[in-house]
């Protein structure tokens, strides 16, 4: 399941949903939650805005989830990414995988967040004391 949304999400509630999707088949659930840091490249961040490419974003996330399900035996998976204005400590991204055994879930979860970071069309713009700037790849 993938979602792109402006509103916040509750990682605990999403894990409960993942558990329901499993229908009792899974023995393990692994999740990653990405947050807005209050500091980047030595500067205090007061706000962050996430831009994306509507349409392509959903296709890219669906492809990442599909590939994870091809490579590992998952019983359920979730990718959620927020867009729009965010504040420090806000949730940005949530990725979770469930499988019969933990190793598959760990690997699939790591694959999904790592691939999302390089393949999904999102761009971060951060607000610092003297204005706004686009985040450079590899620093986020």
């Amino acid at each position, binding site marked *: 399941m993938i979602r792109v949304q402006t509103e916040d999400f509750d990682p605990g509630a999403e894990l409960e949903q993942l558990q329901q999707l499993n229908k009792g088949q899974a023995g393990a659930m692994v999740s990653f939650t990405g947050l807005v840091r209050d500091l980047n490249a030595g500067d205090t961040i007061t706000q962050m805005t996430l*831009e994306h*490419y509507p349409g392509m974003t959903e296709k890219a996330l669906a492809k990442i989830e599909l590939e994870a399900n091809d490579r590992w035996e998952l019983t359920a998976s979730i990718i959620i990414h927020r867009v729009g204005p965010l504040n420090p400590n806000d949730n940005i991204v949530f990725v979770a995988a469930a499988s019969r055994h933990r190793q598959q879930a760990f690997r699939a979860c790591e694959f999904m967040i790592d691939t999302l*970071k390089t393949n*999904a*069309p999102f*761009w971060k713009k951060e607000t610092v004391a003297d204005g706004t700037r686009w985040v450079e*790849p590899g620093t986020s």
Partner: protein
Amino acid sequence: MNTGLLFKYSMIQLRYFASLRESLGIGDEQIELPDGIHDLPGLSRWLQARGDTWASALADNRLHVAINQEIAKADASITDGDEIAWFPPVTGG
């Protein structure tokens, strides 16, 4: 036959994102596929001829291009109706 229906109608949709969108001052536009343009390098050169802002912004070799919302190779061909997007390296997650 109604010859009025025979006018050339080969539009392409162009989209620009993030820092590139800000540099160009435009996020998307629909243009007629220019005569003789069949691939991304040709289209990029045609857009760069619009002026210094376009020339310098689109000459950035870190830019990615997507055709119809799929990442494309720099020398990919283009056809009528395509949606072509340029954007800087992604920074989500």
